[in-house]
């Protein structure tokens, strides 16, 4: 049986969990004091790739573009999906890239991986940048069919097709579940709600076996890392980093305080009489509805 050839692109992000995150007094993120880790959505992308490895058999390569060593992220990604290959794209010229400049590096990285890819996975967006653009732009540059917000999928190995369910969230209408069939190769940006299920004992046993293997392999993850700079990737220097980025961040400012749109009555939480007033106001606010 031909194994599936899978890639997962991941991102090192600020760790927003308790104990790791640090805020400035004004409520903004203190980046220098906040630790970095594998982004939570990148982790879900790795889990989605693991599903295919257990169910269909697959070779998995993980790639990341990072100015940092990104060791922590690559190790967690390897352990999550039992990756066989780890790629780090690191060059000072990559710094400051917008989404197009980033997608260009990742495209070159994926083309450096062994063989043609069947599926490339990414998270649906980074928790820090939050644009969600790199996945679809990378898909487009690779020429792959893009499937966004995928909540589950299965593959027909004979026909080389995928059937995926996608969640489409729009303002003003209920959420939509779309079931879509597409020939491989495809690019999947995985939805945050994705969870894999193995519905028989053979698959569950296989999953356990791979997890143990992944745990052991991840201890020596450094032996698996292949690092590429711009030249080694064969990337066009004018298409990456700041030079390859159409957009710039022109200005960052505090969100201006809007005009008070309601004139708040200020009450004191330690004053029992004020507490009574609040409860009375709640009652009135809700009874107004009944009168209507």
């Amino acid at each position, binding site marked *: 049986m031909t194994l599936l050839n899978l890639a997962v692109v991941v991102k090192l992000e600020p760790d927003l*969990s*308790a104990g790791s995150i640090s805020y400035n007094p*004004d*409520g*903004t*993120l203190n980046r220098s004091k906040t630790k970095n880790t594998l982004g939570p959505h990148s982790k879900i992308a790795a889990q989605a790739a693991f599903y295919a490895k257990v169910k269909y058999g697959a070779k998995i390569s993980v790639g990341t573009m990072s100015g940092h060593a990104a060791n922590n992220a690559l190790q967690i990604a390897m352990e999550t999906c039992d990756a066989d290959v780890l790629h780090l794209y690191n060059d000072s010229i990559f710094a400051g890239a917008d989404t*197009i400049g980033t997608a260009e590096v990742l495209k070159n990285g994926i083309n450096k991986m062994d063989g043609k890819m069947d599926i490339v996975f990414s998270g649906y967006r980074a*928790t820090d940048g939050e*644009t*969600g653009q790199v996945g*679809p*732009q990378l898909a*487009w*540059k690779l020429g792959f*069919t*893009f499937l*966004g917000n995928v909540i589950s999928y299965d593959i027909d190995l004979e026909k080389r097709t995928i059937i995926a369910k996608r969640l*489409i969230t*729009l*303002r*003003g*209408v209920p*959420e*939509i*579940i*779309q*079931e*879509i*069939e*597409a*020939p491989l190769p495809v690019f999947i940006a995985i939805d945050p709600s994705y969870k894999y299920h193995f519905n028989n004992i053979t698959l569950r046993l296989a999953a356990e076996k791979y997890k143990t293997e992944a745990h052991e392999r991840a201890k020596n993850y450094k032996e698996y890392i292949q690092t590429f700079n711009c030249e080694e990737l064969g990337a066009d220097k*004018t298409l990456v980093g*700041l030079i390859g980025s*159409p*957009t*710039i*961040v*022109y200005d*960052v*400012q505090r*969100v201006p*305080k809007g*005009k*008070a*749109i309601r004139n*708040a*009555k200020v*009450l*004191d*939480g330690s004053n029992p009489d004020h*507490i*009574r007033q*609040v*409860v*009375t*106001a*709640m009652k009135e*606010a*809700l009874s107004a*509805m009944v009168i209507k």
Partner: protein
Amino acid sequence: MTEGDYRHVYVVIEHIDGKLLPVSLEMLGEARRLFDDFNKRYSAKEKVVAIVLGHNIQHLPKTLIEHGADSVVIVDRPELNALINKIHTKVICQICLDIETAAKIEPAYSLEFKKPRYMFFAADGIGRHLSSTVLAELDSGLASDVNQLIISDLDISHPIKTAGKKIIYKKTLEMYRVDFSGFLWTTILCLDNLNENLSVREYSPQSCNIIPGAFAPIQPDPQRDGTIINFEPKIDENDLKIKVLSQKFIESEIDFDNYKTVVGFGRGIQNAPEKNIKLVEEFAKHLNAQVGISLPISKNVFSASPNVSSTYMIPGRVIGTSGRKISPMLYIAVGISGAMQHIAGMEDSQFIISINEDENAPIKDVSDIFLKGKMEDVLPQLMAELKNQQIMMQVK
């Protein structure tokens, strides 16, 4: 670059089965306001162009023109009935690059036309992906989740774009977006590379996806005139192998619509997350209220037991531009400071009570009552008083 190379604003319209999504008219409204001003300031005659793709949608152009479009490019084909990113991306790019279409929009510059000047998409489950792939193909810049737009001539000095020299970039679209903390507002620009030492490149269209609810539509005018252009796309046979097998609506994970009261909590739970979430839960039970959260809570900023985190720290409960927009009879914000993106999701509530230690928190400005105090102290007292007054509130 000549005057005719890059012209107009193209707005990608969204609809479901021929029913326009509100964001479509909001984007058109903002495009109209920007271009009325643009044309006056620059003595120009550039157009607001709506692009609409689908099947059985011949009724849409009229509405789009009434809401501000000068031209509507419509592609009405059975292959476009389903939302398939690849096919829609290719058709939109064909429209953007088509000189015949440009000539129908504005005959004067048809020979020079290369690409649109600006392009707007919706920042939602369709537009986010579509804007990314379209701009990857058109090879230009995209800003996401934008909630303010200004067109101006900017004096720019940038190490890469201008080699440090001061250059005036005319007709530049300033695209404002709020960062994930909700406290910083970033201005994104899409600028040509004018640095001769590196590589000179022109980037058009300057593009963004726009948050639903950020802008208001204009009053529809049934007398407005506009051009309707039927576009015949080339659809790649290979792409038709991608098939939508089914598409169905589902109810949201968390129901906000059927509750009179919503209690939202935010970072104020930080001193004892688990305990405080349970306190909010109990408080909400007293009011028969649904529980919502601010965006940071959905990002596992605080640790809690798996049961509590999987129930409450989830994207489905987020109130704000990254989540749901709600308008209950009563909204109670507990330990929420009031970042812009949260306020956009709850300011339409009929009565708003906020509970916060910090009297300078922006949430105060959108509250009817601001109750100063720690949630740990205040909520038990409110519950005791509620019991006292024996209020029984029923679900709508």
